[in-house]
């Protein structure tokens, strides 16, 4: 039996959908990282603050560095 079979299925779905909708490979990778984060914390449903902090960090990395000084 395949371990975490449905997790793999879900990640594949996210990958396929992101390939159609994302503009670049970074966004595709970001989708995968977000989905993995979701599975990692799937049973923590009450207090999601830590998960959102991690999510915020993942997204912040993607914000273009050259925009950092713009308002």
């Amino acid at each position: 039996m395949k371990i975490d079979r449905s997790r793999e299925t879900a990640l594949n779905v996210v990958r396929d959908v992101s390939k159609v909708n994302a503009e670049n490979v970074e966004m595709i990778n970001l989708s995968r990282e977000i989905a993995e984060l979701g599975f990692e914390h799937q049973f923590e449903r009450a207090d999601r603050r830590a998960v959102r902090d991690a999510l915020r960090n993942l997204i912040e990395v993607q914000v273009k560095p050259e925009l950092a000084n713009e308002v």
Partner: protein
Amino acid sequence: MKFNSISLENFGPFFNENEVALSTTASSPIILFNGENMRGKTTLLRAFRWCLYGKVKGHDNKPIPETEFANWDARDSGQEFRTSVKLEIATDSEVLTVIRWFTAKQSEVNRDSVTVVNQGWDCVSSVANAIPREDIENRINSLLHEDISEFFLFDGEALTGIEAKLRSDMSSGDFVKDSIEKALGLPALTTIEDDLEILRKEAQKELQEIVKVEGAAQELLESIEALDDKIKTAEEQILKLDDMYQTHSRRRAEIEPIIQANFTMKEKFEKRDELESEISDLENRNEYFILQIAERLNRKFWTPNSKKIIAVKNEVQSEIDTLNSELQQFARESAQRASLIATLEHGKCDTCNQMISGDSLQALKDELTRLEESIGEISSKEELLQKRRERKQILSGFEDTTADLEIIENFDSQMRQNAIRIQSKKSELSDLKKTLESVNDNFESIDAEYSVILSALQDIKVAKPAVTLSLDDSRNKREEKNRELAALQRGNTPVKHRISILDTQLKIFRESINQFRDLMRLEVQDEATKIFKRLTSEPDYAGLRINTKYYLQIVDKSDRIIQRRSAGAEQIVAMSLIGALIQCSVKEAPVIMDTPLGRLDSTHRKNIMKWIPEMAEQVMLFVTSTEFSNTTDRPLLGSAIGREYWLKRISPSRTEVRKTADE
């Protein structure tokens, strides 16, 4: 994950400490627990649940207070004692030891119960030592979440509950959908979607603040604010509807077993009423018979003796006839006597007129003597005849009542039979009344509540799409306004970029969730079909289908839906769904099955036996001798049995877990 061992201390019938090794190998994944009824098989299953989740439900779906798990002998010892269950769980990266316990002593008020003195739940990791109390629940749920544990740790009784849910038109689709989504981990994506949405709102707020600082687009900000309010209201409405749906669903889940049980109870109440009515009918009939008999006897009291009276009448008549005949004979003899006397007086024969000789004379004298003797009895005979005639006269007052007697005898026979039936029915009624003593026969209120719940659920199902549509519309409008707002801000900024990233990811995740939902349904359908085809004994069944409304259907080779399922087919469908959920599940975990085979025929049982070793890497099977045959079932499992135990009865309140080899 796999269980390495379980230790039961004063838990249920397991007195003192009972440690049971559970580790298995890939080629021998099965652990067999043999035990007859009342030996603690279900308690052993409950020990796993209690240790992991702290909550155990009974067959009536009501929570069992943990104090009920205290061993009776430990309780009655008069000393403070400890009840605990310790599980050693092996995962890929560590070994976790989880122990749930309480110390207690016998209650002074009720000697049959206990008072808990102290309690706790501890978890130690082989790599991280003690795990903080507040993290244990998450750690356990990450191994086997409580929501999906019913598919891994289930008993035969629970299986009937699942069968009932699959049968029910109203709950079938919801149950299958919830089960699939929980087992296959959809919440992992839906909760992250919610998180993305929150971050999106944060970023949007940030952008609005910047634009506000710049003093631009007051009108736009106001319409965004109005849309925010509208979205908030719609979201609250959806939450309220979801909340109501869950509340109603929970109540429906509570009521359904009651309604199911009520069917049986209703039958019993109907049977009680039927018995009471039958008894009353029989008693009425007997009263009627008594009246009829009494009436006949009042009029013709001699009827019970009518046969004797007829016999006596016949006898008297016969005597009268005899006496009459005798009296006629006397009359003839009197005439002879008179003739003889005349002959003897003349000494000559009347006919020939010749003198009678001495010898003949003597003979005539002898004859005369005999006749006179005979005639001498005449007066007594006449007297007797008179008496017999009087008797006949008396008897003639008793008319022939044979026909009445036959009717009375028939009534009497029916009365006796009725009396036996009344006795037997009264005994049955008394047993039934004892069973129904504490049962409330007010079924109407629960039926009415059930129908209100079903209608409310249906209303919510109808109302939610409209609210969702309005929410989507408002969200789209807000996005549009936000884009207009963003356009007012010159150039690309980190906030605008972040919003753009979040928008893209939200779009990806919303679409992924929809696709994953459909994919999960098809995947579970395929897996359930594979299992179903292995388990079913019906060659014409082609498999199972989970339609878009999540109804689980059997289809035949001509793709027709089988509308009526046998009880055996129901169980096979339920087991196929469970098997598919285990196979497709987001997590791999051991399977524990308590007496799952009892209701199956030999072919289904044989098919299940062949499939069990493939269900999971560790399968615990609790069986009784009637559902697991050493001659037919054991060879099917063969070397797949890695360990085997016997739940040995020591006393009514004690069971020991022993290795079968020790027996």
